[in-house]
């Protein structure tokens, strides 16, 4: 009798297992689908729209998603958005190039020559530990609200991540490979080009990605404080007119640009590090 009950239970369990194997539950299928990562953001967006439409959320606090889309469309139609986008993009790029090149050069020098490290590293570390945004009052005094001030800040913000990672990258190149290169008769330049630089590249690219993050951060702050164009400027003028929808558009633009920069650096990694199984 008892054994019969056991059999039944086991049979039931077995058939249940067979069913789940054959046809995954709805929940399982949703979790497996490609849409899964977007479900939560979409739900939040819907909730936001409902809250705004029902009047639970004042437009002074946050505009409805539809209002944001409308504002974005207006800015695109008038072409205003592109003027600001371009202004911000150019600032970001030039600032990053200046900071990146200086960081790279210092990293190579200090990583490659002990003398340079002894002379320069302490100074660099001291400057690095000053939050560069705290220099804004000084920067305004020095450069006014001109382009130069913003470029200076962006360059300063991107310099250190690139420097630190380049330095670390050069130092962590396998000394066995350097010895091998030397014994195979490579000149200093060949050794740098074929052994040291590629060996340091993974680390340098990590620095570049950090720097891109700092680049946007610095630019946002610099543009909201003193500018006559750019996304930050657009957001600040919108604030004065209580246009929360335009402010949100500006924030979304930063998110988009940040994502683009990150994607670009990923592509760069995939190209430069294609020898590395981790990036294939």
């Amino acid at each position, binding site marked *: 009798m008892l054994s019969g009950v056991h059999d039944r239970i086991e049979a039931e369990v077995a058939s249940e297992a067979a069913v789940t194997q054959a046809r995954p539950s709805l929940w399982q299928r949703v979790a497996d689908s490609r849409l899964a990562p977007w479900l939560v953001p979409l739900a939040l967006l819907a909730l936001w729209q409902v809250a705004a439409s029902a009047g639970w959320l004042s437009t002074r606090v946050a505009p409805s998603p539809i209002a944001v889309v409308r504002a974005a469309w207006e800015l695109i139609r008038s072409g205003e958005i592109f003027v600001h986008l371009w202004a911000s993009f150019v600032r970001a790029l030039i600032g990053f190039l200046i900071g990146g090149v200086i960081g790279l050069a210092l990293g190579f020098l200090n990583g490659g020559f002990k003398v340079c490290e002894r002379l320069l590293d302490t100074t660099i570390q001291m400057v690095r530990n000053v939050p560069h945004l705290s220099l804004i009052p000084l920067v305004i005094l020095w450069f006014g609200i001109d382009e130069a001030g913003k470029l200076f800040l962006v360059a300063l913000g991107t310099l250190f991540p690139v420097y630190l990672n380049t330095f670390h990258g050069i130092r962590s190149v396998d000394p*066995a490979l350097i010895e091998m290169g030397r*014994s*195979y008769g*490579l000149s200093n330049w060949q050794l740098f080009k*074929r052994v040291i630089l590629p060996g340091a590249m993974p680390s340098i690219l990590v620095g570049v990605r950090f720097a891109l993050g700092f680049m946007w951060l610095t630019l946002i702050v610099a543009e909201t404080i003193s500018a006559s164009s750019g996304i930050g400027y657009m957001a600040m003028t919108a604030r004065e007119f209580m246009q929360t929808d335009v402010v949100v558009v500006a924030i979304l633009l930063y998110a988009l640009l940040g994502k683009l920069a990150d994607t670009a650096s990923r592509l760069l990694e995939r190209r430069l590090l294609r*020898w590395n199984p981790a990036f294939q």
Partner: protein
Amino acid sequence: MKTGQQTSGIELRIESVSKRYGTRQVLQDVNLSVGQGRFLAVVGRSGSGKSTLLRLLAGLDRHDQGRIWLDDRAVGDARSDTRIMYQDARLLPWQTVADNVALGLKGRRSDIRRTAIESLDQVGLADRADEWPSVLSGGQRQRVALARALAHRPRLLLLDEPLGALDALTRIEMQQLIETLWKVHRFTAVLVTHDVAEAIALADRVILIDQKRIAFDLDIELTRPRLRGHAACADLEGRVLSRLLTRGSTQTDVQAA
């Protein structure tokens, strides 16, 4: 210009060479001479200074006393006719197999490429020329490293336990490959190894370095190709090993005292 030089190996002379690292004396008053195109194996316990001897020959480290002559020139910085093969392949992971082999070669790009492929062909890996080193097995990487060394047509090939990390079968294949290429190119070879059987299978002469000196010097006059496990090989191996082991016990006594 190349063909004239490659035909013969370097003649090697070491005269009362000493080397210390810090306070530790590694080699003391070592004398050795090796004729052109000979195959010398250096055996010894780990830390006995056998690898140091090789590094001195390669010009990677400087000896403190004595002289080292390669032909009639004192050993100096990296020489184009001396190449070293390490225990790890030391391939550049960011360069293709062919570019690794071409490392340090001079000349036109197409010539370099051709030399590299020819060299890879000798170790049977020409078809892997455009792959990354990361996809190769350990044995294949060592073969690429061998091709890289041979691409320079070295007259002295220094082998620093190059087969130590390989499995037994791959090891034997590599030993045969090295022997074959040595016979073809007639370079002088110095093999550092802790494997006495390997030394006897490959070398014309085996020296044992122990307590900073050459403790034992044995000519191997077996015909090639040598059959592994042959009685004559086993006999010689036994002689070298017993020498190594008795030395080892006195060393332990000294350390204990």
